[in-house]
């Protein structure tokens, strides 16, 4: 047990250092003279990673599927533009965006997290539609025409912020899933009744986790709002973003810290290739990849690769992660 603990600690330490180094390197890109194409690619990779990790923190760790993360990011984007247009400083505006998304998540959390997973999934699905309808109706949100950010910020600002959010979220998932509470959450995913029986307040843990996850999604959306600077409700609250938020971690490996990183890289690559080859089939192919990964790799590409390599390392000791999970 002690050995395991030691290995865990080493993993967290090295993992954190690697994530910090990557984050710093990516954040420094605007000053390293790379082309704007590469910079945009990295930005979008970070955007999808941050959103994916936000989803991962809730759905990947608990197994409760959220379809609302696109909408939560949209709420963040709207909140930040409204706050900045009211002449609030950047830090406060970002904070407001995170809080707004967190509050919206409470509506879903309180109404449906006492129940089994399906009710939660439905509640998140309808948030998407409800928010889009409300935003198009509310006068201060600009109606169907959307809203525009009045102040223009330098492009490096959203770039650095987005990389920081993505790196921070990845670090959070890495440390959290090995923490005491994180282990409780994983125990809950595997058997909620058993976890409740040993004294874990499952409902409270889920609500708090979903709130934190929503705040990260809101922050991500807010930074993207600064990047995009003009928001149209049908674009901001399209279902696409919610699909990306769950496809990135599911393809890479839901419930792991580094899986979504791989998922984001794969997704951004796929998106670039498809934009040239078959822009119409983008959605279909994402769906096919998602289906194939779920059916044949069970818990994503990263854990599948992990099993492949460990299989070569220690013959005879076949790890059965998928079997334990199922």
């Amino acid at each position, binding site marked *: 047990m002690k050995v395991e603990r030691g290995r865990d600690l080493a993993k967290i330490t090295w993992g954190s250092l690697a994530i910090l180094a990557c984050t710093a390197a990516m954040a420094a890109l605007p000053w390293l003279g790379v082309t704007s194409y590469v910079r945009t690619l990295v930005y979008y990779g970070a955007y999808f990673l941050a959103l994916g990790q936000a989803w991962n923190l809730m759905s990947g760790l608990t197994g409760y599927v959220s379809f609302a993360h696109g909408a939560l990011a949209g709420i963040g984007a709207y909140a930040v533009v409204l706050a900045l247009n009211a002449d609030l400083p950047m830090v406060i505006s970002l904070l407001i965006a995170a809080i707004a998304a967190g509050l919206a998540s409470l509506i879903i959390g309180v*109404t449906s997290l006492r129940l089994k*997973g399906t*009710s939660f999934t439905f509640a998140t699905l309808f948030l998407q539609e409800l928010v889009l309808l409300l935003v198009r109706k509310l006068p201060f949100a600009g109606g169907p025409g959307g809203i525009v950010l009045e102040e223009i910020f330098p492009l490096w600002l959203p770039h650095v912020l987005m990389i920081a959010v993505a790196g921070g979220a990845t670090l959070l998932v890495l440390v959290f899933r090995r923490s005491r509470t994180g282990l409780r959450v994983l125990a809950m995913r595997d058997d909620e009744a058993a976890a409740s029986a040993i004294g874990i307040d499952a409902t409270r843990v889920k609500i708090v986790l979903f709130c934190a996850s929503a705040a990260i999604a809101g922050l991500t959306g807010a930074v993207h709002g600064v990047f995009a600077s003009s928001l149209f409700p049908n674009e901001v609250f399209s279902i696409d973003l919610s699909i990306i938020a769950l496809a990135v971690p599911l393809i890479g490996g839901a419930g792991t810290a580094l899986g979504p990183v791989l998922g984001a890289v794969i997704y951004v690559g796929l998106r670039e290739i498809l934009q040239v080859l078959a822009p119409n089939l983008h959605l279909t192919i994402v769906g096919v990849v998602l289906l194939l990964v779920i059916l044949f790799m069970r818990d994503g590409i990263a854990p599948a690769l992990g099993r492949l390599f460990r299989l070569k390392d220690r013959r005879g000791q076949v790890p059965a992660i998928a079997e334990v999970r199922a």
Partner: protein
Amino acid sequence: MTFPLFLQLLTNGLVVGALLAIVALGVALIFGVVRVVNFAHGEFVTLGAFATYLVVTQLNISPLLGIPLAFVLGAAVGAGIQAAIVSRAAGRPELDVLMVTYALSIIGLGIFSSAFSGDFRSYSEGPSGIFTLGSVVIGLRSLTVLLVCLIVGVGTILVVQRTRIGLALRALAQSRDSAAACGINVPAAELFAFALAVGLAAAAGALVSLIGTIHPRVGHDLVLDAFVVVVLGGMGSIGGAVLAAIAIGIVNAFTSFALDDSWARILTYCLLYATLLLRPHGLLGRHVGA
């Protein structure tokens, strides 16, 4: 509000509610028997709608014949998908199974969007004209939809309540393990339920093409309402789903008239959250153990 207007809105709501009931019936059937929320259900509605549209406009076949054709096509596609894809995920964690039907939904949405673009389509073949009953005006097409929904809905409920295979389905919905222990062929029963439900969805799609315009998201949008209905009626309860569908159809007709379509939908979703909070097992539902 005058009394004739009240009756008119009630009739309009009844037509929409009946259509919704057929779709929700399928969602409830799959949820009850296969224990899967079929997120791809809307894409099967769209499939039925476009299949009927193509048959009517290209082959000059009556849309009335398109309804059984859509049902058969839907049942065949549904059986294929259940056998080849959904059954593979059986027994896996809930997240995996949900994501399978969700991925199918994304694939279907992508295919319809790229094949038919975003145009709104409709056709003029088939029954036309209006029918007046006192002060209520009802289009012959709407009347057709109402009648077909009644026949199909009653037929499905009879199959579930009165036949041997229906008994197997109900046993499965109560307890999977006990049903298997009693010698019920679980994979075959699941295949039947899935095929029947998808057939219903496709037939509903054919009816949608008869009374409205169709586009690649037509089923996707309709199924969101069907999900509301299934939650309100108590997850997996067929009778509850039918009642809730008709109620939602009528409520929507009145709120759409008094305010507008968007507010009607906002109200529907708020009703859903209130139900989840106050009556989590549906308006009529009782708590049923898994």
